[in-house]
C-alpha cells in the first residue's frame, strides 16, 4: 500500500539528506584542515596545481619552503611523496640570500621547470611551474 511506503520513506529521505549534508561538511572540513594548518603569507611555498583528490597518494596542497628542502619518496626527505614516478631523492630547493634555486638530484624520471627538463641548478621565480611525473607544483614567492 502506497501510504505505508510514503510513511517509511519520509524518514529514510530525511536520514539520507542529512547523511549527504554531513558527508559534504566532513569533506570540506578535512580540506580546510589540511590547508589552513599553516599560514604562508609572505613566504615562499609550493602550491599543488593538480586536484588533490585526483592523486592516489598522500600529498598536501601547499608546502612551505623553509630553508633548504628535499623532495623524494624516501621518508627522510622534507617532502615525502609516495609516487612511483618520484625517485627516492628527487629534487631539492636551496635558499641563498632570499633567492631559491632548484636542483634535480639525478632522478630517474627527471624534473621539469615550465615544461623544460632540468639539467642544471636554476634560480626560481614566482609563478614557475615544477613538474615531476603527473604532479605539478606552482612556485610562489611574493617578496
Amino acid at each position: 500500500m502506497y501510504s505505508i511506503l510514503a510513511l517509511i520513506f519520509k524518514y529514510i529521505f530525511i536520514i539520507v539528506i542529512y547523511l549527504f549534508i554531513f558527508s559534504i561538511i566532513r569533506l570540506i572540513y578535512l580540506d580546510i584542515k589540511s590547508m589552513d594548518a599553516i599560514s604562508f603569507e609572505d613566504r615562499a611555498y609550493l602550491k599543488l596545481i593538480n586536484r588533490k583528490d585526483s592523486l592516489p597518494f598522500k600529498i598536501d596542497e601547499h608546502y612551505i619552503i623553509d630553508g633548504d628542502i628535499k623532495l623524494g619518496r624516501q621518508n627522510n626527505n622534507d617532502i615525502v611523496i609516495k609516487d612511483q614516478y618520484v625517485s627516492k631523492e628527487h629534487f631539492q630547493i636551496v635558499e641563498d640570500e632570499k633567492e631559491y634555486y632548484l636542483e634535480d638530484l639525478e632522478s630517474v624520471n627527471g624534473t621539469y621547470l615550465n615544461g623544460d627538463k632540468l639539467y642544471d641548478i636554476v634560480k626560481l621565480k614566482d609563478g614557475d611551474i615544477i613538474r615531476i611525473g603527473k604532479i605539478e607544483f606552482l612556485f610562489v614567492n611574493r617578496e
Partner: protein
Amino acid sequence: MNKEIKRIIIILTVLCMTFISLIVYISYFQIFKASAIKNNSYNKRLWINEQTILRGSILDRNGNVLAYSEKEGDSYKRNYNYGSLYSHIVGYSYREYGKSGLELYYNNSLLNISDSTPINEIKNIVIPNTTGNNLVLTIDHNIQSRARSLIDGKKGSIVVMNPTTGEIYAMVSYPDFNISNLNENWKEISEDMESPLINRAIQGLYAPGSVFKVITAMAALENSSYETQYNCIGSEKIEGYVFKDYEGKAHGPIDLKGALVKSCNTYFINKSLEIGKDTIGKISERFFFNSRIPFDLPVKSSQFPYKEMTTDVEVAAASIGQGKVLVTPLNMALIASGIANEGEVVKPILVKEIVTKDGKVLKQSDIEILSQGINPLGANTIKDMMVEVVKSGTGVNAKIKNVTVAGKTGTAENSSGKNHAWFIGFAPADNPKVAVSIVLEEDGSTGGKAAAPLARDIMLYTIENIKD
C-alpha cells in the same frame, strides 16, 4: 589578512547569519506556533477529515442527543437539536465560521484523531479512521432547560453543579445564539453589542460584591480575628475614604456570623486590615483565584491581586468583593461547592466520558480533589453561617420548605452604574446535592431580591429531578 579578504569574510558571515536565522525561525515556528496555525478554520485540510470521518455525537448525562452528524451527499452535515440552549457548551462547527466550545476543544476526540506519532500513523493506515467518538456530558438536559428559562431575557449566567463530584449539571450564559442556523444570522451575532458569543460562565469576569465575603470570613476564621466583637455604625472610614453599609443602615454590636448573615460591609472592612491582605489572598488562591481552573473548556482566571494592593482602601474594598477583585461564575460555584464539601475543592467536570461508536469507554473523568480550601471545621462554621443567611438574613428568598439551604447574596457595584445581583449556595446543607452560582449582570436589583429566587427554583428542581 588584507582588507579585501576581511570584507569578503564579513559578507560571508552576514549571509551565514541570515541562513542560521532562517533555521532558528523555522524551528521556533514549528515548536511554538504551528499547532495554533494548523487549527485555524481557514486551513482547508481540517475539513478534509470532516468529509471522510463521521464526527461523533454529543450527549447529555441521560443520553439526550445534543449534537450529531449525518451523511448528506458526499460529506457529513452537523446538526444541533436544541438551538441556542447549548450554544456555549457544545459550541459550533461550521466550515465558514470555524469551531467553538466542545466542538473546538474536543475536536480531535470527536474525529478520533490521535497525535501524530509514527505508530499512530501506521495504525491509521491499516485501519482507516471513519467514525469519531461520542462525548457524554455531565449536563442534565432538563436542568439546563430550566436554568435557561429562569435567566431568559436577563443577561448573566447560572452554574449548577454537584458539590461533591464536580459534575456540572447546567451551565447557562445569556444572551446566547442559535447554533443550528448560524448561516442565517452570523453577522448579527458577531456584531451584537451584548456579545452573545462569550460564555459568561467561564469567560466573564465580574465584581463579586458580598458573595466574596465568604472568602474574607474564612480568612477571619484562619487567623482568629473573628473573636473580637465589632460595633457597626453604618459606615467606616479608611484613610479618609468612607465605606457605607447597604442604605447606610447601622447593625450595632455584631460578630462574624451576624456580619455575614446581614452582609455587614463595615465589619469586614474593619476586620480586613486586621486579617491582612496576605491571608485573604492565600485563602482565595486555594479557591483558584489568580490561576486557571482546570476544566474541559478554557476558564479565565479570577483575580485577587493582593500583591499589587498597596493601600488599605484597596484591601478594604477587596474584602467586600469590590475594587480589584474579579471572578468568573464557575469559580464562585466552586467556592460554594468547597464549603459544602467540607473544604475540599473538586475539579469541575463537563465531559463525563468519551465513548467510541460501539460503546467502548475511552476516557472517563474521575472525581479529583484540587485543593483543601479550608479545614472541615472552618467549612462547617461558614456553612452554618450561610444557612443562617437563608434562614433569617439577606437570602430568605432562597428558602425551600423542608430543605435547609445555605447561601450568600451579593450586590456588586460596577462601572455600568447598575449592580450585578449574585447568589451562591448549596442544598441540602447537611447532605449537599447541588451547588449553584448565579450572576445577573447589570440587573440593578440586589442579590437577595433578584438572584436568590432563581437559586431557590433551580436548587429545588435539581434536588427533585437529579438521578445519579
